[in-house]
């Protein structure tokens, strides 16, 4: 074993998991897909006293629809989300983004609840949830509550969850679409190698009317700062325009003018800002082209 010693519990219900977490105190950690936690343990960067393994909590493994919303259990694997017909139909941006999550082996283990709770600004799922006005259900022995993801993501690796709360479900409302418009979306991620952790990226959803005027736009930024970002200012530039190249370039510039990406060996702040700007530009252009072609 590479990690430091820890206690291990494998509850089979949310109630038991919540009880263990409440009793486990600050040093207890939840284990879902383990794609971030296990490397941290093996490098001994993390040393929890108790690991609560959620993989046997089968009630968290559902995907269903209700009242115009998609409800995805926290334990659903990325590959299952990406391959689900309802996701492809209603949230193609999420399916596209999941294709950038590392490699198939990792997508077969990583979970939507895990990546949401991890709150990594360069991860693919959080930014899409933000652009989709998603919410999560947080469960504890004290009850459960809904949190909008915009309120959930506080900073890098930091959420507004209380230490005793477990994300049990991610809720994505169906997009409200104006009649007579066509929506296009695109996710553009930049990394040095296939499947690598992103240097940066951009995502866009645009809604075009019959005259080709953008009625509604959402612009998301990957790895742009301490949390996933959405640029309302860029959306304002795009809305009511025909999404001409110059307009889109201006929107990408506006989106990235104020961002402060984290620099490292693969790129410093200035370069990452350039990359995120270019990816944002490409995302909007691609989304617009898809809308014009009617291919979603």
């Amino acid at each position, binding site marked *: 074993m590479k990690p430091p010693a820890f206690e291990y519990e494998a509850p089979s219900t949310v109630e038991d998991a919540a009880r263990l977490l409440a009793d486990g105190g600050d040093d207890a950690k939840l284990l879902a897909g383990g794609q971030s936690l296990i490397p941290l343990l093996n490098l001994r960067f993390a040393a929890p006293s108790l690991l609560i393994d959620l993989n046997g909590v089968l009630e968290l493994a559902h995907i269903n629809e209700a009242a115009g919303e998609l409800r995805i259990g926290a334990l659903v694997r990325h590959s299952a989300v990406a391959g689900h017909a309802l996701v492809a139909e209603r949230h193609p941006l999420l399916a596209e983004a999941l294709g950038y999550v590392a490699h198939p082996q990792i997508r077969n283990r990583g979970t939507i609840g895990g990546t949401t709770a991890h709150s990594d600004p*360069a991860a693919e799922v959080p930014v899409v949830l933000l652009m989709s006005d998603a919410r999560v259900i947080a469960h504890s022995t004290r009850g459960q509550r809904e949190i909008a993801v915009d309120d959930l993501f506080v900073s890098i690796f930091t959420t507004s969850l209380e230490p005793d709360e477990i994300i049990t479900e991610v809720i994505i409302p169906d997009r409200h679409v104006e009649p007579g418009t066509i929506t296009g979306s695109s996710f553009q991620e930049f990394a040095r190698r296939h499947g690598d952790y992103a240097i940066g990226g951009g995502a866009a959803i645009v809604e075009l009317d019959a005259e080709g005027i953008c009625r509604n736009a959402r612009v998301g930024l990957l790895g742009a700062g301490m949390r996933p970002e959405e640029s309302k200012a860029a959306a304002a530039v795009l809305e009511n325009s025909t999404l001409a190249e110059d307009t889109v370039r201006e929107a990408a510039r506006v989106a990235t003018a104020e961002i402060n990406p984290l*620099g*490292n060996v693969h790129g410093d702040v200035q370069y990452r800002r350039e990359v995120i700007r270019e990816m944002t530009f490409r995302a909007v252009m691609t989304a617009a082209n898809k809308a014009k072609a009617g291919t979603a």
Partner: protein
Amino acid sequence: MTLTEDPTTTADGPAKEVGNARLRKEDARLITGKTTWTDNMVLPGMLHMAFLRSPVAHATISHLDVSAAKDRPNVVAVYTGQDFKDEQGTIPCAWPVTPDMVNPGHPSIAVDTVNHVGEAVAIVVARTRTAAVDAVEAIDVDYENLPVVLDMEEAVKDGADLVHASTSSNTSYHFVFDAGEAGTGSDTDAAFRDAEVTVSRRFVQQRLIPAFMEPRSAVVGVQGDNYTLWSATQIPHILRVMGALTTGIPEHKLRVVAPDVGGGFGGKLQVCPEEILALLVARRLGKPVKWTETRSESLMTAHHGRDQIQYIDVAAKKDGTVTGLRVRLLADMGAYLRLITPGVPALGAFMFPGIYKFPAYRFECDGVFTNKVPTDAYRGAGRPEATFAIERIMDELAVELDMDPMELRRKNWISAEEFPFTTVAGLEYDSGDYEQATQAALELLGYDELRAEQKRRRESGDPVQLGIGISTFTEMCGLAPSRVLGSLSFGAGGWEQASIRMLPTGKVEVVTGSTPHGQGHETAWSQIVADELGVPFEDVEVLHGDTAISSRGLDTYGSRSLVVGGTAVVKAAEKVVAKARKIAAHLLEASEDDLEFSGGKFSVKGTPGAGLGIQEIALAIFAAHDYPEGIEPSIDAEAAFDPVNFSFPHGTHLCAMEVDTETGFVTIRKYASVDDIGTIVNPIIVEGQMHGGLAQGIAQALYEEAIYDADGNLTTGTFVDYLLPSAADLPTFHTGNTVHAATSNPLGAKGVGEAGCIASTPAVVNAALDAVRHLGVTDIRMPLTPERVWRAIHQGGDGGDRAAEGSNAYGGARTTESGIEEAAQ
């Protein structure tokens, strides 16, 4: 020429095995892991070692208390450098390249100072690996920091801080080869004084990490005063000699076994401190011990490769004829000299002239100490550095002269009819045809169409530009003629050993001294022996890697196995046939001179039907009831082979590269290479070596770099930051061969293990530059990260100025002390 000789059935024997694309017989067990990897070994009562390693690059150890660790559960012993200072000796350096080379010594475990991050400071020995690792955290240690020396150009200045207080400077040696003085060329200074054109460049060969798949691992067994060391090593024979000399265990009391070994790339051509310490701990405790490194430990503490600053000047006439070459190197030794650390640049010293007819050449190299892990052999060792420098500067000269880069090369390369050709560095190139390989490569690439597309993209201002890079290379391999190694002050010879045992049932055991670590020796040697003895491929077993079985050998590196070790196998087989001939003559009641040997059978000339198979003779001589007077009852044989010259594979590599000028991302559009490696024994093995070599050479150009921060911490300490490409990141390789047999061995083989790695790096960089040179870019620092390419295009320079700092292993949170890099720019 065609790929190989026709391997079809001959009139009186089975199909030839040499040239046959056999699947590798060792692969099933290697790939499934169901074999004797060292870490799979378990001995009764075996203990486990874990190391406390220095977190600082240069310091004195001011306080070291291991008592708390000794009290941890299942801990058997904890040792520090004080415990072994009188018996650990120094890690051997077998290549003193100059008589006055400074070697400050290399303790296996630090005694009172540490000189690089990752150096061993204490050893915990416990009943389980986990217990040992846990107890390491209980060791109390304080360091008093000393100035850290990292930058070679600073380290060689007068008054620079010193890595070793015992030395007067950070320069270990100054090695010079001057063709004028050696009598192999004319005066270099005069060539540059009279030059019509000169071009000078400074190239950086970044530090690389061998990154073999199987981590290093060592197990020591104790039987009385006999020790057996199992190790994931490339060099069991050399390790036995050096391990015995270092520890004082008599050589005949030390057996070294390299079981199946999962890759090395030069990184396991070493006498590792951990191997020595495993022997010392096992001797101290009288118990078996095991150590297997983690990947983090491997990246931080196993030796690195490359790391040179190259200053290169070329002199030429205006018509493109080259007239002189001058090379000065700073070569980073790291903190200590390991087995052949100082010799790696010297292996390249004679290859900078490449395939070109320079009349004048001078080479100088300073070996420089820094507070980093030592460098040593890494695939190509010296020759990739030389090939990169010459192939890059030929392109620069072409730009200066406004000549086509291929025309410039063609004007200066050795023509086919000039072989054998003695170069300005004094090497005699054996055979080849550079024009033929080049023509084949141009066709494979579709050169003319791509040039036309490049023109279109340039004219339309396409954000994605296209470039084509050239590398016409040769290398010296088949290491090596022993006398030449002696003249270069290398501590050993370059011969190789083989023996063949004919078993009573006719099966054949081949013992080779050339120990494989993934190359496919078992398959290739079986093919050679099947042809030589006329026995079925399946009847041959190849034994290797155990000094108790293979007592003599010099192991595997430098593309030497087939050229030297394979030839030793041929020589041993010839002896077996000669011995069997005497038995056959006796049993067939014929004169030896009247016998012919074909397809594994001796027969009397003119009566081909009757005869005696060599496998039958093996049984007859085992029984030994009836054999001639005056000879021994055995047809087993042993042979050693020492080549008289290196071999010189060559080839033309062409890379077409797309550069996204908006992001700096580069994509290899197409890669074509035509190599001449002499006779091919197994085309599948050759293809595999080429693909792996290309991947590794391309990786140097585009992905890999070991980065230390300003304090001497390795920031690329995991595979998240030290990037190796996968198949998804690499193009389809379009490969081909021309065949000009080597003249220095009977197989005609030249060696293929390093060719792809040596040739490809400059082709890739030249291609990227060709794509963006019209935008004002003249150089891009390797690896060509998107950030560097983007900077070179948009901000000038080579894009490598920004000191890389910090690590983002898990999301950028540890970038600086404050946790977040300021968005200052």
